[in-house]
């Protein structure tokens, strides 16, 4: 009775890349993360070399590539590490040698390496591979033999990262995107760390059938949390009978918040249709204006333009080539992904249709997530909690403690919620190597705070 997940989804196997898909490039084992959209023309810059990303199209996710200096220009070549060699080369496989060395005799005066920059360039132009250069550097180092074994490994790894950098091809998942943003542009996501993000998902009990109300002022990261659950394209084929959930991203005022992060995923149209936007005023108003359907198209355009502006301001063009946004003005046809002639990103964040709003008002949302690190939490909670159905959980993220403390206190006083808890996640990574296991030297000191709880039934007839 093993799942017979159909591998025969349209043309695509999501385990293999395709032209136009979004990928995450992991350079040198986590040192640097870059998002890209694969096409014949897209490139990647590592150090001072620019390589075309074309060789990556059609390869399975998880493939490893190494930068090689070709006769004309550097290129990425598929690299399959032989397991045996790894055991010897990798830090993990080495045994402790009999005679322990130490660094008492090593003087760090930059004189140890006898190969010069010109020598290395000469080697390159003769077609030496990155690995050969690394070996040459080791052979020409006066102090290499004197180093401890660990030190030798570290040296080798450092040279390899510089002269033969490796690129790992990965799928974009919330986890990796959050980590990349947290490392590079934490302010944009309000210091929402990956463990805090995962807590929001759990504490708000988000599942495929959830109707999630989201206030997302962290670039779309929280909106995609729900969507990430639909990342797998194969699932889309059965969208009709699969979960009935949706996500409503609400906003104060007139303009929705930018959700550029959504475009980094490979969501197709079916999924994007489930991300709906609705202003807070619309959600809270008693009756729905007739003008909604009429203005729908305009609003969509406005939103698009707004996103464009914001995106060009916020996004660094080098790391995140999101220029594909410029091409998107209309809804893409349903089977866009199968043809994939263009690199257009399907649009998400349609203005919520009247039926959806009415349905939400009738049944209530089943989860509420607020990630508005610069806003006053209580005013948002006060307005949004009534939209949440009874006994539904909510999770509010804030980078500061005080607004959440105030909210928690008020919620208790007004008896609006139960099971209230303010949590601060703490995350530490470890380096695990033989005889060298310890927590990493660096860690993040800030993960924000989360207020979670369950909405109570409030009988409005009671005083």
């Amino acid at each position, binding site marked *: 009775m093993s799942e017979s997940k159909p591998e025969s989804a349209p043309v695509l196997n999501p385990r293999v890349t395709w032209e136009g898909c979004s990928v995450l490039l992991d350079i040198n084992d986590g040192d640097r993360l870059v998002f890209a959209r694969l096409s014949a023309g897209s490139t990647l810059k590592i150090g001072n070399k620019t390589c075309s990303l074309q060789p990556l199209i059609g390869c399975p996710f998880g493939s490893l590539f190494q930068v090689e200096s070709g006769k004309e220009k550097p290129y990425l070549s598929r690299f399959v590490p032989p397991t045996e060699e790894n055991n010897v080369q990798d830090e993990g496989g080495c045994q402790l040698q009999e005679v322990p060395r130490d660094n008492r005799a090593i003087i760090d005066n930059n004189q140890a390496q006898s190969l010069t920059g010109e020598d290395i360039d000469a080697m390159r132009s003769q077609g030496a591979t990155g690995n050969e250069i690394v070996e040459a550097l080791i052979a020409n180092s006066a102090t290499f033999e004197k180093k401890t074994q660990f030190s030798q490994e570290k040296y080798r790894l450092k040279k390899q990262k510089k002269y033969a950098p490796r690129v790992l091809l990965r799928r974009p998942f919330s986890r990796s995107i959050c980590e990349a943003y947290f490392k590079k542009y934490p302010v944009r996501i309000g210091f929402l760390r990956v463990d805090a993000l995962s807590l929001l998902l759990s504490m708000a*009990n988000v599942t495929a059938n959830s109707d999630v109300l989201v206030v997302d002022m962290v670039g779309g990261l929280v909106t995609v949390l729900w969507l990430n659950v639909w990342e797998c394209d194969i699932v889309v084929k059965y969208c009709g009978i699969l979960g009935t959930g949706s996500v409503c991203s609400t906003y104060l005022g007139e303009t929705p918040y930018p959700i550029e992060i959504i475009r980094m995923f490979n969501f197709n149209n079916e999924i994007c249709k489930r991300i709906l936007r609705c202003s807070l005023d619309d959600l809270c108003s008693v009756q729905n204006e007739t003008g909604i359907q009429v203005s729908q198209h305009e609003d969509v355009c406005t939103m698009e333009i707004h996103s464009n502006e914001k995106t060009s301001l916020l996004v660094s063009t080098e790391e995140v080539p999101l220029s594909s946004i410029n091409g998107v003005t209309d809804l893409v046809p349903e089977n866009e992904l199968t043809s994939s002639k263009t690199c257009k990103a399907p649009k998400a964040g349609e203005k919520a249709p009247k039926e959806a709003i009415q349905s939400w008002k009738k049944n209530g949302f*089943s989860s509420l997530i607020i990630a508005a690190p610069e806003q006053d939490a209580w005013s948002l909670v006060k307005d949004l909690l009534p939209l949440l159905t009874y006994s539904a959980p909510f999770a509010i993220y804030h980078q500061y403690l005080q607004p959440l403390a105030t909210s928690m206190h008020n919620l208790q006083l007004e008896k609006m919620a139960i099971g209230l808890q303010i949590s601060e996640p703490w995350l530490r990574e470890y380096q695990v190597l033989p005889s060298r296991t310890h927590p990493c030297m660096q860690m993040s000191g800030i993960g924000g705070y989360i207020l979670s709880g369950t909405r109570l039934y409030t009988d409005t007839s009671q005083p």
Partner: protein
Amino acid sequence: MLLMDPSRKISFNRCIRDGDLVIVYERHDIMKAVKVCENSVFQNRFGLFKHSDWIGKPFGSKVFSNKGGFIYLLAPTPELWTLVLSHRTQILYIADISFVIMYLEIVPGCLVLESGTGSGSLTTSLARAVAPTGHVYTFDFHEQRAASAREDFERTGVNTLVTVGVRDIQGEGFLDEFSGSADSVFLDLPQPWLAIPSAGKMLKQDGVLCSFSPCIEQVQRSCETLRSNFTDIRTFEILLRTYEVREWKMDCSKVDDGGSVACPPGKRRRQPSSEGSVRDNPSCAAVMARASAEARGHTGYLTFARLKCMS
């Protein structure tokens, strides 16, 4: 869990029915799962509660006992279930559970293998993550615990998403029929390195594995074994620090007392005029937060790894 079955979803109109599972909330640390039965009663230190009073009320309601005490009735979620389930083994809590699910990249439709099942705490959350089309195959070598877990999954309504098997994964590995079909594998075993080779065979290419171990020696050995066929090996620990909130009404009039506060002479002269305004507002209320005195120091190390792409 109500959300996983769209026909029984919670909503404004959905009331508690006979046969529903509710979470009885007495206090944040005293909760219990109760199956609603028309003729049953629930008894605790607050008194006697008739289930028939509960039927027809919305979830999230406050209900009273014969003595006037009260409790709240909540809809079950995997988080609440983790807090109320009976511990047959040490369980995973929300911090680890949520991180595991995110890092294993579990989405609806995934096939997840787990060993050991233990008390089913993580399993329930895995079911939520793979719903509605995915599946969790979980294994425990203890027959009775496997049976108890099966019962729990029926009670909470996730049994369509979870299959419990009795198998010694450490000794025998996973079943061949799952070869190459698992999106994610989770191991919570005393000697996970014995199960890692088999887990590697079960995973699809680029699939993710997670091993949870309380001791660092276990982590070291697991990582050693992982290095042959896995990449992107990372080990974490995650903890939650909770905060308490209190309204502190400070008695501001005390501050006027020249004796207790050292003010420069200039300020002292100004005091009489400000005294009046302070007395009008004798207490300044402030909501303050403070970390809880009790904290968890350690649960276990989470090691994640991705199957190397060999083709």
